[in-house]
């Protein structure tokens, strides 16, 4: 029932867009996209606006980001099968609208923390395809020099805090980021918010309830973002959660449910949530309905708990990139179709080039890199302990 309902919402949105096609004024002009019925509220005084106001250049930006995410994740798939990437690899393809929508709604002042399915969030917050792929390949040019791997991407300068391997643990940490944002803002002023993304599989973690409780008590500016991709590893919400309406799980805490396959829906929903949090109303749950095409990770074929028809149907009717492309093409002159094709071609080439470059790098040298950055000073410089025991000897720094 859930995917059909969302498909209905999308079709309504598209038909309305078709109706207003004639009203947009081409590139740079305003494009209004209706979002009626795309939001469900829980104890919310107001819902996000019924339409999103955007422009062609904005939409093209979102498309570029989302398409880069998609191509990068597909590249990871290929590289994993070619064994240049090893270990864990959790792919985000199908969920790009959430990453791009949050990136559009929030600023770099807002803190962002997510789970291990974090390659695309790193891309949205300052990572390059090359540094991400190099990290996955275990190269010293990788985002964390080969120290972190797939689940541990970070960019403190852009307020991106990972990248967390333990299911649900990012949410209390996210509440801590929100607390820090509140602590450092003079009372009465707008606070930067913190968003903690987690999945339907994580949603029942006790520590999430704990964090939500404290965030509500202390009115922390925390957005608890549930990326409901319909499966926690192999377990559907019906089998894992006695309450599937994750946006209501905050009890007295307000919640919002939106279509996570529509980047504008995500953007508007997140803007609305941010407005609530930043003004001191306390935390908000935002549930984004989405889907992942790959299995939970590269070691999961993704077909033992769902069938291929379902995957194909979502791809055919709800794909976030296809939706966005249709939106662009329907609201622009004919020439934009060529621009879109050129963009896709360019992104494919860029990602392929980045992959090539990543492969050319070299892995970190244990003699120089193994023992670094265990302890740091306040400026991020390495302050190594005097002795570190290694398998073969006692390393003295």
């Amino acid at each position, binding site marked *: 029932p859930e995917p059909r309902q969302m498909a209905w919402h999308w079709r309504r949105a598209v038909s309305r867009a078709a109706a207003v096609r004639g009203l947009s004024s081409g590139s740079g002009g305003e494009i209004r996209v209706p979002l009626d019925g795309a939001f469900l509220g829980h104890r919310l005084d107001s819902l996000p606006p019924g339409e999103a106001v955007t422009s062609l250049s904005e939409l093209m930006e979102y498309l570029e980001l989302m398409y880069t995410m998609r191509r990068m994740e597909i590249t990871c798939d290929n590289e994993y099968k070619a064994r240049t990437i090893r270990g864990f690899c959790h792919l985000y393809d199908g969920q790009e609208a959430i990453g791009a929508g949050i990136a559009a709604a929030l600023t770099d002042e807002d803190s962002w923390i997510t789970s291990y399915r974090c390659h695309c969030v790193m891309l949205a917050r300052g990572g390059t395809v090359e540094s991400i792929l190099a990290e996955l390949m275990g190269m010293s040019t990788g985002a964390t020099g080969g*120290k972190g791997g797939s689940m541990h991407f970070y960019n403190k300068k852009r307020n991106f805090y990972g990248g967390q391997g333990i299911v649900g643990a990012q949410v209390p940490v996210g509440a801590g980021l929100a607390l820090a944002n509140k602590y450092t803002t003079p009372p009465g002023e707008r606070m930067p918010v913190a968003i903690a993304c987690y999945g339907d599989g994580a949603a029942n973690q006790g520590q999430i309830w704990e964090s939500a409780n404290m965030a509500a008590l202390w009115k922390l500016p925390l957005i608890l973002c549930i990326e409901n991709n319909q499966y926690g590893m192999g377990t559907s919400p019906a089998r894992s959660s006695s309450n599937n309406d994750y946006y209501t799980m905050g009890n007295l805490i307000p919640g919002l449910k939106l279509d996570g396959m529509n980047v504008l829906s995500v953007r508007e929903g997140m803007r609305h949530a941010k407005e609530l949090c930043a003004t001191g109303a306390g935390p908000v749950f935002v549930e984004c309905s989405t889907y992942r095409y790959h299995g939970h990770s590269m070691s999961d074929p993704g077909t033992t708990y769902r069938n291929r028809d379902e995957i194909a149907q979502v791809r055919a009717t709800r794909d976030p990139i296809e939706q966005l492309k249709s939106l662009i093409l329907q609201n622009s002159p004919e020439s934009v179709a060529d621009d879109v094709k050129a963009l896709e071609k360019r992104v494919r080439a860029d990602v392929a080039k980045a992959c090539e470059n990543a492969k050319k790098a070299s892995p970190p040298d244990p003699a120089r890199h193994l023992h670094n950055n265990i302890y740091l*000073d306040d400026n991020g410089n390495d302050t190594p302990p005097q002795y570190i025991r290694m398998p073969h000897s006692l390393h003295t720094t």
Partner: protein
Amino acid sequence: EETTRRRAVVRVVVGAGGAMASVMFGRAVGGRGVRGVARRMASTQMTIRDALNSALDEEMARDERVFVMGEEVAQYQGAYKVTKGLFQKYGEKRIFDTPITEMGFAGIATGAAYKGLRPVCEFMTFNFAMQAIDQIVNSAAKQAYMTNGDMNVPVVFRGPNGAAAGVAAQHSQCFAAWFSQVPGLKVITPWNAEDCRGLLKSAIRDPNPVVFLENELLYGQAFPVSEEAQSPDFLLPIGKAHVERAGTDVSLISFTKMVGYCMEAADKLAAQGISAEVLNLRTLRPLDRDAIIATAKKTHRVVAVEEGWPQCGIASEICAILMESEAFDYLDAPVERVTGADIPMPYATALEKAALPQVEDILAATARTIDRTMYGTGTARVSTAQRAPSESLESLGPRPTAAKQPTAPPLAAAAAALSRSPPGRGATPRYESPPLSRGRPAIDSRECSARHCAPASLPSLFCTEECPVRRLRLALTDNTSRRIVVAGGTHNQASCAHQSLARA
């Protein structure tokens, strides 16, 4: 008592300003303390509780980013009153109460530290930190390494650790070994008031995650605090052990409450003519390898003391360090460990006491190191200090391998043995021994099942020279005889000798 002390102190320092007084009793009153005040203060007594309180107060005054969170830290004034007065002074933003949700608030403290704040997260006891250990280890400790230097996590997790009194199994665990194993953490175990002041201040200023293990039973204990240590900028280095008492004959290495027991044991040993060195580790990670090796090289005998469980404990690590370093060549006896019993903590007083190390256990271990010498003196006889009859273990019934021994000569004999310098020890001591034995082996009475020895008026842990079991063993290891005739005055003696033969 506190009020009397306060009045007495005020009489002494009248005219030097209320600020100074605030530092002396650790009250959250006034400003910065001794800085800029002309008159220098004398050394004073301070409880651990006040030492911690004053350190927190000074660090909160010094740095706006420091805040305290935990259960009952604010309005209740602290479950153990360590944060007394801070809520009144600093208000709700800087010190606030949390619900009883350790995993959640440890994560919140960690997240705040990601953004450069400096939270002090209190656990009511570290038993409850087990619920939060994922956040401490996976979100805090490993973060600097996983981010390859992008993020440091300046959070302090503090609270009482280890056994209290009568709080039973789930509230008495010592987590020193668990946390000290984790790379990326710093683990501090202060003992006296100066340790607490200097190390808590260093911990709060340290840019890395720190686990600060206090001890509930020490909170009310007072220690002298020098004038230097009363300064608001008094810091002690993390990772450096401290020789609390210099000695030459044996090293007692320990941390937190057990340091006090080692000091008591050292006094008793001194009365017997044995000079014990007491090393207070202060920090468990990074462990001060150099200090441990240096003290072992100096005294040649080591007793490692901890309150926690023995398997894979701190004392085990000390043994490992001494084994794998140059200190091994300087040891005259195997390292002895004194640890808590390898059982969950029982409740009843006698059971709890028996499960925890006592001063007598440290003395017994010391005696064992002295008796087990590698250089052939071998005849040193030692006895342990007695337990008071009412606390005697005998009242519990016989220990599984306990033996009643005849009275053994006092430790003075051991002291005499020590004063004879063994052969072969020169500038670079090398361990030389007959091929089969390492000198005369000691026999611990717990190994000796001899019940034939005359019932002792005093319990002792050592067989005497007259013990036939011991003499049989010596005979075997001396390799002088090929035929052994087991003959005993009583059936018991013979069977006991037979058992020892089998073992040997």
